[in-house]
């Protein structure tokens, strides 16, 4: 027998000595210290909101949330949520809606990510930026753009489609229907999904795919059997995250769904928790958060088992790692058409509507006479005041600080999650995921309470929003960094260790640079998500911390559609600039 020298371990050799086991004190390396600090930080950030969630869901909040005894304990919220048959009837449509949107989002994101990161697609960087760009248009505005374009009565596209046939009546496309909801929601998930995937795709070792090719498999087999499975940590991480995103997403179901008679869980909850006048029913939101948390726990534990075998996905190795660009050849034109077609649909069209709205004193019926009304007055008005400049500065501080803080923390946490052999690492991952399942109001409230109690004077400043935002998006960051670190073969860290490098230096010189694409993608994600987020700035708002998103909302609330459009254009511009700058720094191939 060939490998006889490696005889099977059983039966054990007779002379075998029983193996003693000893427990020793490990001297903490500085990487462990960094990890420990990260865990403390995440506990600090997440414990409050989590406590608040429990508190909210188990009390009667009709007179506002009580945060000190005596508590009005009550199970009524659970009765309201789970005793309502509407909850259950909405679950099915929610599942269809979520599954559909996720399918759209992942199909588009994976395809585009692969094209951008692995092939010689022309103008890759522009495609990257423009795929991410729609996230710069506020969701509400985006959904409204879609209804302007596609509503069955006088949507622009419908009108144009009807024109050649002289057809009358509504249609042919009805944006107020489940398929369109799915499509629009799917498109709105693309930017984040795309960012969650691209960095990992970059780290797939080409020789693993080459081996499959030499084994006789064609392109699609390689993608299905090699590339995607290797991306499992990134894909499943993104999937769990985006599932929760889509279940809690409100804008599309609210703007498109209700008119079409499609009601999902999030609209159900929205309606239930926003009574006519009076305070929102925080209790119901909290209960819903508890439910979501419970639901996402199962896939999270599953995910952690995958990460537990992270070496199965380590594709960035210290041995002939060849990042390789695949030549598209005759597929180049279809690929270009696909990417730019999608960009036209997801970004250019809504952006044109937005621009149009920003140059109109009010948004009236489509028509030639509207051309006469074109004006730049909206720009002068919305961008003129000192308030706008304040908001711009605050937005910038918010985006950069939250993204930086969130990503640094996420990287350290993910290192613990991936590399630690402790049983509790799954707990750390769950802790890091928790904020995503929490309703924004819960995070807002707990942050508010915390900084009213603690002697840290950030109440009323932009920093309280930064902290809340970092809390909210730590889960987004860890989805990305966990997959990113799992891709790096542990040997690269070990080689640094045997070269005398301590934890700080390993981070600085080895992990950091190797994780650069991941870090920049994550930075961009949190940056974009934070400057878009409306709930937290509104809740924690004061005179001194107005940001662009609240400004847009106020303009809108005040009935100033033009102003809102102008500010949204500004937001989209910031997004494009930020994405371009960050892409510049990672754009070159290789690691």
């Amino acid at each position, binding site marked *: *027998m*060939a*490998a006889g020298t*490696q005889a099977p371990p059983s039966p054990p050799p007779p002379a075998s000595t029983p193996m003693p086991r000893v427990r020793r004190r490990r001297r903490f390396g500085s990487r462990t210290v960094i990890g420990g600090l990260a865990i403390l930080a995440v506990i600090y950030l997440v414990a409050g909101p989590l406590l608040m969630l429990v508190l909210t869901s188990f009390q009667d909040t009709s007179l506002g949330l009580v945060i000190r005894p005596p508590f009005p304990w009550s199970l009524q919220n659970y009765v309201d949520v789970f005793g309502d048959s509407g909850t259950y009837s909405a679950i099915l449509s929610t599942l269809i809606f979520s599954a559909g949107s996720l399918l759209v989002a992942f199909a588009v994101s994976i395809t585009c990510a692969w094209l951008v990161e692995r092939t010689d697609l022309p103008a890759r960087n522009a495609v990257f930026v423009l795929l991410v760009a729609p996230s710069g248009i506020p969701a509400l505005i985006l959904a409204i753009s879609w209804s302007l374009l596609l509503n069955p009565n006088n949507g622009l596209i419908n009108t144009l489609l009807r024109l050649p046939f002289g057809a009358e009546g509504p249609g042919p496309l009805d944006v107020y229907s489940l398929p369109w909801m799915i499509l629009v929601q799917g498109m709105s998930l693309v930017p984040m999904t795309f960012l969650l995937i691209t960095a990992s795709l970059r780290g797939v070792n080409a020789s*693993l795919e080459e081996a499959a*090719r030499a084994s006789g498999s064609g392109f699609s087999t390689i993608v299905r059997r090699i590339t995607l499975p290797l991306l499992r940590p990134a894909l499943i991480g993104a999937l769990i995250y985006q599932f929760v995103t889509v279940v809690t997403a409100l804008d599309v179901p609210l703007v498109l769904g209700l008119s079409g008679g499609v009601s999902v869980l999030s609209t159900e909850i929205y309606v239930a928790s926003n009574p006519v006048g009076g305070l929102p029913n925080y209790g119901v939101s909290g209960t819903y958060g508890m439910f979501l948390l419970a639901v996402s726990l199962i896939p999270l534990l599953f995910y952690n088992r995958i990460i537990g075998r992270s*070496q199965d996905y380590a594709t960035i190795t210290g041995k002939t790692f060849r990042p390789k660009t695949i030549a598209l050849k005759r597929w180049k034109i279809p690929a270009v058409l696909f990417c730019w077609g999608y960009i036209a649909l997801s970004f250019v069209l809504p952006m044109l509507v937005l621009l149009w709205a920003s140059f109109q004193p009010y948004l009236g019926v489509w028509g030639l006479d509207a051309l006469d009304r074109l004006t730049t007055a909206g720009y002068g008005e919305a961008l003129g005041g000192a308030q706008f400049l304040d908001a711009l500065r605050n937005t910038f501080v918010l985006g950069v600080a939250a993204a930086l803080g969130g990503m640094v923390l996420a990287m350290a946490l993910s290192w613990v999650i991936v590399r630690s052999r402790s049983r509790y690492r799954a707990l750390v991952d769950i802790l890091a995921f928790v904020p995503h399942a929490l309703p924004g109001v819960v995070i807002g409230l707990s942050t508010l309470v915390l900084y009213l109690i603690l002697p840290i004077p950030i109440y009323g400043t932009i920093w309280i929003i930064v902290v809340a935002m970092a809390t909210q998006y730590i889960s987004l960051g860890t989805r990305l960094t966990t997959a990113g670190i799992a891709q790096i073969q542990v040997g690269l860290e070990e080689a640094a260790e045997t070269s005398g490098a301590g934890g700080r230096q390993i981070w600085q010189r080895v992990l950091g640079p190797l994780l650069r694409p991941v870090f920049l993608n994550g930075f961009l994600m949190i940056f974009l998500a934070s400057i878009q987020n409306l709930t937290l700035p509104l809740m924690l708002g004061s005179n001194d911390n107005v940001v662009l998103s609240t400004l847009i909302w106020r303009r809108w609330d005040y009935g100033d559609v033009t102003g809102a459009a102008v500010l949204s254009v500004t937001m989209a511009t910031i997004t494009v600039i930020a994405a371009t700058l960050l892409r510049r720094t990672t754009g070159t191939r290789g690691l």
Partner: protein
Amino acid sequence: MGAIRVEHLFHAYDDGGREVRAVDDVSFDVEQNAFYTLLGPSGCGKTTTLRCIAGLEEPTSGEIELDGVAVVSARGIVPTNKRPIGMVFQDYAVWPHMTVAENVAFPLKVAGDLSGREIQAKVMDALALMGMEQFVQRRATQLSGGQQQRLSLARALVRDPKVLLLDEPLSNLDAKLREQMRAELRQLQRRIKVTTVFVTHDQVEALSMSTTIAVMNQGRIVQEGSPREIYLQPNSRFVASFVGATNFVTGVVDAYDDDTRSAYLSTPAGPLCCRTEHAPEVGSAVTVAIRPEALEIGYEHPGRENLLEGRVQVGLFVGDAVDYRVRVGDQVFRVTGPQRSRFHRKDAVVLHVPADECVVIPDDPEVPAGVQATVQDQGAR
């Protein structure tokens, strides 16, 4: 017609604007069922040549034919997965997300013409061949380096390819296993009649397994021939020194005897008589290659011809022999002494080399002067 035909193959990598010419006009034919070896130093372009044959690199120019089908030609390029090949990668490239069995089953599953049971059976056969049965269910990442390489070999063989491409498939195996695999691979190759291109930098592997060896240097084939030709009649200093250790002596031809086909030389180490077919010009300078194992070492020697007197510098025990360095005049000779010999440092010894073992190296037009210089440098180190 050969099973593999490579013609005027060029391949250049782009190294940040600068062009690295990894393969530089390589042509060769491999007969049906032959075992063809590319042998050469690190970085000489062996892997690149193999990757071009596999279709993993698109050559800058050149033509390649596999099993009668032009896979790289002016008319187009056949993609890798359509070529009838099996390949073992230098870095194994086992799929970390699959178990051992899944890795091996992959090529069969992709082909899709076998039932699950048949696949199972073939996988077990291939694994058994590599002595890997007990790891069937282990994850590929939990294997040691050598085990991964055997897995990679099993994967390449499992689908009975027409052409087998091996990129140093034995380099991570232990000596024992390597020797065994060497024999087995060769037998297997004969049995399943698969034309094989084998890349290695190990001369013993190359010599013992190949039907034909092509020695490569700096992207070119510098000599092609049977193992014995390559070893016994190297056409250049480079080949002589690469394929086994060699001592070089430069000397001036004093006379040539047509009857015995012997050249008489004066060298710094003393007079030498060499057997050679090609009469060198009298008075010209030539190089003579002498293998360490051709030199007999002793305190004295009964013969009178081709005796070199020197002093032992060092003796390294290498198991089946002792590897001596003996200083003769200004030059240090490598000498393979018998296993049990115990010459000590500073001992005065006599080396004897039969005239048959003195190989006169012809001027090699193919290798540019620069390369020779480099090799010489290396040798002098």
